[in-house]
């Protein structure tokens, strides 16, 4: 197991290196002068020059061969945009916003809890509804129940998330007025963040009203973001259940006269859940990227919304930092899913 973990983590190094390289290229192929692209008409010659200096745009892309030849020092060779960028990445320094001057890594740390809380709620929603629905469909295979559940699941992956979000707001916030349309808390609610997960913060500080307010704000975006994972969980649970129900040990359990409920819950479901858990884990990253759309519609102050605003403002350090951050989380979560898989199922040997 340890060997497997080490090897899996070591395998991440070339991928993460590639990711950083790709992002470096993407942000350097901006046609023309990136400084002008970012500041546009707003930039004076002074600010432009300052930005070029800060981003190191005056330096060569990869190697400073001329600098090396004239000075004769090896260090000079690596005084390039790429090495400055990599040095920052390794230190966790993602630069500063072009406009607001805030530190990108610092802001990511502050905003991540909002996105994380929303993602957790979406996954919770997907599992609580998806697993029973999938089991139900599997037990009623080929009936109208099965067909309806599967059609609904198929619809679930066909919704444009942002549109679903707008419709939910229109129905439940505007027309019915049951739930708040946007934000994480009401303006009147005062809550001193502790972990940044507001529901938890409310509990920890004993402010139950604040927790409840946070929950109300989470419901609509959670549903919007959780619909696609819900559909995937339903399909996965159903197919996994069908496979397990056909196994010998299930037939044995039935043959020895166990109640159907016990057969389903104890023998079948437990074994069927493994691939479902994997799918849920793997959809975590997809949720993080889906958050760009959901957070935009719900004015949710997380990473997605932040990156979206940065795109509109052409604030490249934020875009670059946000994308690298999400990719890093995604890759790490996938590795964790692999580890848990190996832990849960001893049949899997990773020699």
């Amino acid at each position, binding site marked *: 197991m340890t060997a497997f973990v080490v090897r899996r983590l070591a395998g991440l190094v*070339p*991928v*993460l290196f*590639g*990711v950083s*390289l*790709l*992002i470096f290229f*993407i*942000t350097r*192929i*901006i*046609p023309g002068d990136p400084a002008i692209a970012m500041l546009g008409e707003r930039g004076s010659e002074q600010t432009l020059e300052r930005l070029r200096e800060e981003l190191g745009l005056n330096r060569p892309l990869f190697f400073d061969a001329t600098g090396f030849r004239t000075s004769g020092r090896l260090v000079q060779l690596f005084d390039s945009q790429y090495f400055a960028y990599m040095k920052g990445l390794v230190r966790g320094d993602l630069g500063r916003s072009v406009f607001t001057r805030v530190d990108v890594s610092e802001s990511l740390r502050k905003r991540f809890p909002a996105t994380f809380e929303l993602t957790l709620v979406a996954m919770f929603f997907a599992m609580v509804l998806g697993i029973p629905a999938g089991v139900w469909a599997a037990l009623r295979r080929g009936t109208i129940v099965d067909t309806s559940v599967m*059609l609904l699941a*198929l*619809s679930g*992956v*066909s*919704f*444009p*998330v*942002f*549109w*679903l979000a*707008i*419709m939910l*707001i*229109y129905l439940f916030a*505007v027309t019915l007025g049951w739930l708040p349309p946007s934000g994480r808390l009401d303006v009147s609610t005062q809550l001193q963040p502790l972990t940044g997960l507001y529901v938890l913060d409310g509990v920890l500080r004993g402010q139950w009203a604040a927790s409840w307010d946070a929950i109300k704000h989470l419901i609509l975006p959670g549903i919007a973001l959780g619909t696609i994972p819900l559909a995937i969980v339903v399909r996965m649970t*159903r*197919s996994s259940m*069908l*496979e397990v129900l056909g196994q010998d040990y299930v037939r044995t359990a039935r043959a020895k006269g166990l109640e159907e409920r016990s057969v389903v819950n104890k023998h079948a479901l437990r074994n069927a859940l493994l691939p479902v858990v994997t799918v849920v884990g793997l959809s975590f*990253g*997809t949720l*993080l*990227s*889906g958050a*760009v*759309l959901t957070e*935009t*519609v719900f004015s949710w102050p997380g990473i997605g919304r932040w*990156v*979206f605003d940065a*795109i*509109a403002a*052409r604030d*490249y350090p934020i*875009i670059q930092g946000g*994308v690298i951050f*999400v*990719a890093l989380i*995604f*890759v790490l979560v996938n590795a964790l899913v692999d580890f848990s898989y190996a832990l849960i199922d001893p049949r899997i040997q990773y020699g």
Partner: protein
Amino acid sequence: MREVRTHEKGQSLFQDALKRFFRNPTGLLGLAIISFFVIASLLAPILRPYDARRDRDLRARLNPPSAEHIFGTDELGRDLFVRVWHGGRISLRVGLTAVVLALVVGTFLGLVAGFFGGWLDMFVTWLVDILLAFPGILLAIAIVATLGPSLRNALIAISVTQIPIYVRITRAVTLSLRESEYVQAAHALGSRPGRIIFIHLLPNGLAPLIVQLTLSIGVAVLDVAALGFLGLGAQPPDPEWGVMIRDGFRQFLRAPWMSIFPGLAIFFSVVGFNLLGDAIRDVIDPRLKNV
């Protein structure tokens, strides 16, 4: 007594698959939906020529759905029915082009990597792993954010995000067949790599590729709309569905119909592709039925 039926001629796999497809109600529903969208898109310029730049009627702003404007009008008085109809042309064209582009590039890379192996395989696998490190449309967002927002750049970006799946499929097929006897025989007969790849290996990958192609178009249509909604894809006044929902979102307290109808159009077209893709998979490869 049981009746024994014999076929005069053996049925081809294709005929067999076709027969099974036509017994699949959800697949037929998908086919009907897609046909509807395709035919509507093809007929649009003939029945109702449309020029988005000239279209405005300020006397009919934000009209709710009525007999005259069955989907209502937007803030410039544009008829939403006509715009949604023409929007289908954009979504289908861009979705299909992006997917076919990804299919061609991905299949080529997958075949080459699987067939030649070695450092080439390692390199391609590395590239794919890098692309897969960006979840969902994140990479597309990053690419378009840099290249600049436009429909063409959105198409390129979406295409890039779809390449990995095709590389994986063809690479897997190629690897499993590379050592098979008939490929070895072709080698022994002195066939060139190009011939082996295209005559012997590619046809075996066709079934999973076709299934993936159908399912990918749905995803691509969703991504085109998402980029349009974020302001990174098609630009106004183009009647692209995502852009229309973006316009509608700004007015959605006063004119919810502006976002409802383009959204429904996206939903139904994507449902169509998904139903069709699922059915084709069941028909072509029954082993995958419950996956």
